[in-house]
């Protein structure tokens, strides 16, 4: 039986270092309560005294406030009542369906669209943070020509003259460069442009792409295919370096389906088993039942061995290996119910092997299906970019049009793309920011954010969604399609016409308008998914590909592996403070990236977390801080991309180091031959892994499926036998609605979507790196990550912790001004207007979930920055304590709605908290525990259910469901 005592959060905790003890002891770490360089405390007091005196004089007369009703009324807009619109967001050539809340014309909160196959009502952390990017005052706001202010009219005049047929002829010297596009209407504009300029070429480049997967399917099937996984039918999942529960998830349906198979409601229910083979400790590795640490280059050999062991590939049987043999036996036993996945950072051969394995195991058509790739000419993006670079270098390109993306930052370092851009006589650049690419462009045009422009896109399975704007472009931005329409003289010029007319043309006239309205309302175009294909993998072709491109022998020395940046992705979210401040799910690092190394490699090289090292490959080098990551593969360094942006807004400028500087055309994902030199200097990393520590009490309860079957009441049996008693009579909460929450630790994958959803819903401020270093981050919900086992090869578990809404709340007794009290519905209310900031409550909270506004974190926000606030929640000021309220604004709204409709009863599931709604895994359930039929009441009384630190008699309203794992008994 695993109880919390065997879990640890950091190497410091495991070793019991003095620094960790200090963190544990001090509730509020040292540091004068002021921002550096912003005037002293004394000066502040002086100013306060002066303004108080002035305020006294003016307070007799209240300020006049106006009410400005619109001149013309609208049925759809009721002041103060939000409207919801369906739209979609495209990342990396895949669209995710969203529903966006608009308060009086301002988009404030993003939710997933339940009708969309890739979101199923949930969202990623990045989608949650998109509203903040919309209002980012550092976004590109103006048209620039050679760095000087210009206008759209000026650009249109330039384009009319420059792209005239008489001048450019068939456009042989024009090149377009865009991100991976999945928009059907843009495709129409693109086709028009390429008809208009038959000599021109259009190149798509995305630094984090699916090239290898497409190429792998081409090897296996003879044509590129897009793969769909059906985790709901898979009992056995093998991930070959595929972080499908984390950054590599192409559909949130994957997480939903996978998690549903891990939450056994009774001991009799079957549960899936996950084997993860990976180098970096990923979220998928954390969820895995068995994890094998391998360097990226070793994964292919593992895949080949597995294929040979299963007879899918001819060749000598691999030498006996405990892990491999057990896995092979497991896979053989679950034919047609297993699933092998290859990650996007693995070469095409590994993908081809995965297809072959799935076919040999009878999975094809059951747990894994395919559809033809939307375009047959999809070739390796890096090859097209290389040929573009060659043409640029040879001076064969006169006009380069860069549409979105930031290639000057993300292109391989050996290309020197920023310099090459200047070789084109004219270059036009459409972008969301004035960034590295704009610097080399003649024309910089501001791009419209997806929340302010019309567009469309396709999901992984081909389902099309219309991208509906929520607001007029704040800074006059335009879309890619609009700019290409201007350049090529497309029949429609406005994005709305381009998108609408494209779709209307495809429908019979009679239904066109109706279909359009339905597509806008539903957020999906019905019947638009790609037809399923049933190709057969050709073993001989795979074998031939493996032979023609043999795996390189495992090299001595260090290997480098590039991963997406958790907060920044490929750098596009670098200026988003919400994402920068949300800790990386595994490393718990904020406001930085770091070179991850295993403890063994660190001790071999004499490194410690925070040491600044110089990483170099050939002539490419960069300085990076080291982070010792338990469970990382040895002799391998993982570097997250997308940080270290030099030309970026104020939030993301020079945050972290730029790993793209090491990424070359021949080493896009991993490579041997990394050199690491110590510099002797150190950097401070804002790690939150020891923040809000709960003193090593039994917090996570876990068992294996076998143990659960033997003893279904293992939770009750593992808890200390204490008879809780109270010194006073406890109030009873047996009438009316009694709110409660249940979090299933078996389902949670620790993706952080809840953290960002809460931040967006509850107006939670960003505090910055300096304040995070002092332990002052403000997230109301945090996802604790624990390790278990040896530092070399630990397991991991995650646990979202938010206010437990204790019935016997320790915080309430100690508040001298009764600012935190209990509501009759069992909520631990927090009245900000009454709080005087003694912080006694936080000191007395055993869960460490209260957050104090040490500073006026909202100070200095621009007018645009204020537009992101949820008007239903108070914006807190300095000196006030705050914490999770179970989204009381959502509760009250639904209660009032019920009363208006003349009912008291609130249906189960009618109220959803922000964290619950965003959760892709469906791990969070909220409801009325007084209603025996509600889901949450059932989960509360579940045999896996337990309360955190229940033995303190706090009677928490949030309960957890013990984590279940399903390890292979052979490997146990």
């Amino acid at each position, binding site marked *: 039986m695993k109880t919390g005592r065997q879990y640890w959060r950091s190497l410091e905790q495991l070793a019991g270092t003095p620094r960790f003890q200090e963190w544990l002891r001090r509730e509020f770490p040292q540091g004068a309560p002021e921002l550096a360089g912003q005037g002293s405390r004394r000066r502040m007091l002086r100013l306060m005294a002066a303004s108080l005196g002035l305020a006294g004089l003016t*307070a*007799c007369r*209240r300020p*006049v*406030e*106006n*009410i*400005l*009703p*619109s*001149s*013309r*009324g609208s049925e759809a807009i*009721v*002041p*103060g*009542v939000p409207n919801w619109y369906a739209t979609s967001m495209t990342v990396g050539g895949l669209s995710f369906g969203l529903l966006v809340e608009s308060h009086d014309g301002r988009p404030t909160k993003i939710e997933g669209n339940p009708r969309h196959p890739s979101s199923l009502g949930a969202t990623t952390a990045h989608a949650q943070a998109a509203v903040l990017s919309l209002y980012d005052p550092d976004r590109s706001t103006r048209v620039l020509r050679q760095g000087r202010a210009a206008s759209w009219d000026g650009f249109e005049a330039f384009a009319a003259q420059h792209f005239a047929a008489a001048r450019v002829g068939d456009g042989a010297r024009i090149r377009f460069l865009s991100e991976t596009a999945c928009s059907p209407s843009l495709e129409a504009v693109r086709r028009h442009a390429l008809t208009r300029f038959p000599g021109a070429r259009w190149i798509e480049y995305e630094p984090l792409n699916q090239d290898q997967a497409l190429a792998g399917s081409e090897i296996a099937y003879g044509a590129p295919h897009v793969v769909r996984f059906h985790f709901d039918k898979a009992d056995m999942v093998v991930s070959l370096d595929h972080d499908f529960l984390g950054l590599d998830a192409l559909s949130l349906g994957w997480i939903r389906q996978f998690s549903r198979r891990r939450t056994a409601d009774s001991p009799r229910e079957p549960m899936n088993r996950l084997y993860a083979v990976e180098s970096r400790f990923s979220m998928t590795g954390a969820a895995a039942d068995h994890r094998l640490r391998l360097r990226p280059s070793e994964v292919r050999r593992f895949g080949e061995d597995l294929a040979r062991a299963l007879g899918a590939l001819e060749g000598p049987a691999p030498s006996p290996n405990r892990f491999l043999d057990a896995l092979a036996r497991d896979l053989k036993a679950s034919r047609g119910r297993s699933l092998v996945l290859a990650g996007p950072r693995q070469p095409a051969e590994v993908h081809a092997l995965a297809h072959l394995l799935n076919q040999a195991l009878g999975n094809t058509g059951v747990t894994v299906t395919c559809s033809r790739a939307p375009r047959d000419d999809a070739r390796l993006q890096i090859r097209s970019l290389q040929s573009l670079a060659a043409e640029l270098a040879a001076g064969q390109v006169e006009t380069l049009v860069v549409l979105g993306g930031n290639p000057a930052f993300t292109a391989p370092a050996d290309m020197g793309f920023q310099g090459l851009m200047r070789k084109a006589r004219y270059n036009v650049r459409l972008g969301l920011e004035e960034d590295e690419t704009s610097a080399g462009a003649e024309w910089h045009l501001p791009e419209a954010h997806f929340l302010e422009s019309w567009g469309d896109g396709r999901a992984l399975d081909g389902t099309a969604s219309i991208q509906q704007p929520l607001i007029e472009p704040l800074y006059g931005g335009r879309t890619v399609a609009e700019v290409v329409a201007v350049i090529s003289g497309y029949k429609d010029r406005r994005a709305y016409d381009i998108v609408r007319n494209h779709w209307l043309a495809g429908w019979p006239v009679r239904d066109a308008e109706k279909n359009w309205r339905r597509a806008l309302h539903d957020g999906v175009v019905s019947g638009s998914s790609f037809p399923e294909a049933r190709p057969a993998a050709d073993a001989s072709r795979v074998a031939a590909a493996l032979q023609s491109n043999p795996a390189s022998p495992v090299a001595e020395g260090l290997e480098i592996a590039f991963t997406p940046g958790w907060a920044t992705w490929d750098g596009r979210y670098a200026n988003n403070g919400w994402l920068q401040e949300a800790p990386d799910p595994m490393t718990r690092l904020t406001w930085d990236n770091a070179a991850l190394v295993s403890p063994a490699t660190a001790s071999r090289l004499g490194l410690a977390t925070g040491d600044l090292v110089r990483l170099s490959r050939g002539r490419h080098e960069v300085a990076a801080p080291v982070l010792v990551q338990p469970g990382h593969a040895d002799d391998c360094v993982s570097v997250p991309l997308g940080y270290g942006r030099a030309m970026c807004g104020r939030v993301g400028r020079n945050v972290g180091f730029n790993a793209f500087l090491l990424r070359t055309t021949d080493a896009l994902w991993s490579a041997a031959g990394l050199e690491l030199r110590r510099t002797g200097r150190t950097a401070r990393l804002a790690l939150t892994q020891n923040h809000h520590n709960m003193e090593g009490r039994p917090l996570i309860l876990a068992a294996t499926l076998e143990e659960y079957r033997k003893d279904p009441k293992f939770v009750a049996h593992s808890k200390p036998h204490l008879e809780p008693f109270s010194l006073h009579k406890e109030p009873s909460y047996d009438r009316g609605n009694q709110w409660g929450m249940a979090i299933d630790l078996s389902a949670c994958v620790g993706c952080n979507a809840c953290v960002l959803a809460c931040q967006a819903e509850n107006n939670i401020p960003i505090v910055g790196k300096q304040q995070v270093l002092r332990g002052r981050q403000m997230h109301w919900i945090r996802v604790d990550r624990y390790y278990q086992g040896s530092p070399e090869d630990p397991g991991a578990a995650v646990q979202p912790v938010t206010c437990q809404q204790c019935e016997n709340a320790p915080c309430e007794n100690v508040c001298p001004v009764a600012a935190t*009290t*209990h*509501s*009759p519905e069992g*909520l631990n*209310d*927090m*009245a*900000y*207007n*009454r709080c005087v900031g003694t912080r006694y409550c936080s000191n007395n909270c055993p869960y460490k979930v209260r957050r104090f506004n040490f500073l006026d974190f909202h100070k200095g926000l621009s007018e645009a920055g204020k537009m992101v606030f949820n008007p*239903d*929640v*108070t*914006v807190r000021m300095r000196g006030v304590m705050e914490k999770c*309220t179970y989204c*009381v*604004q959502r509760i*009250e709204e639904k209660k*009032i709605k019920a*009363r*208006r409709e*003349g009912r*008291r009863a609130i249906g189960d599931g009618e109220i959803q908290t922000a964290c619950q709604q965003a959760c892709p895994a469906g791990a969070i359930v909220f409801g009325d525990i007084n209603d025996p039929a509600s889901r949450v009441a059932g989960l509360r009384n579940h045999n896996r259910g337990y309360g955190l630190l229940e033995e303190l008699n706090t009677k928490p309203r949030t309960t957890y469901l013990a984590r279940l794992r399903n390890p292979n008994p052979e490997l146990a």
Partner: protein
Amino acid sequence: MAPIFTESADRLLRVVIAALLLLAAGAAGLASWIFHPRQTEVGYTPVQPVPYSHKLHAGDLGMDCRYCHTSVETAAMAAVPSTETCMNCHQRVRSESLALAPVRESYATGKPIPWVRVHRLPDFVFFNHSAHLAAGVSCVSCHGRADQMIEVKAVEPLNMAWCLDCHRNPAARIRPREYVTRLGWRPDRDPLELGRGLVAANNIAPPVNCSGCHR
């Protein structure tokens, strides 16, 4: 050893301290009286950009409050009407009136009329009109006899203690829902008795905990 201070000096010191304490308490009391919303809020009658008379429209002409304040039953805000609502009638009625010039101008230009807010709550208070109307609280309980006001005037302090008076004892101000916008309505029996009956029948339990109003 002789005392440092004489007995009279000691006495004087005590008197001075007592006087200072009294003075401070008096000043605090006076300040809290002066700055109480009863003094600062009640009676506030700002000049509006258009001399709109609630007495004429709601009183003499008998228009229902909800003709203009359309969302009062369905939303948190009662909503000040758009200019279009005024023009529904005033395109024909008194279409030349000088006093209505700003209304016509707003209608023509699309610019809003800058009405001056009379009833204001702090940002940390989340008042909901629809919840109160659904329970049977009449407009008159907070806004007074608006149908008799030529210029709208604040009649209640709208401070927390005043809110809680009713939240703790709602019976006195609950009436059948169909009469909530009839400001001059009087029940044919004891209002308190009627209110008690409605509170019991409709299960009315106004929140008195913090998150009922503060979120």
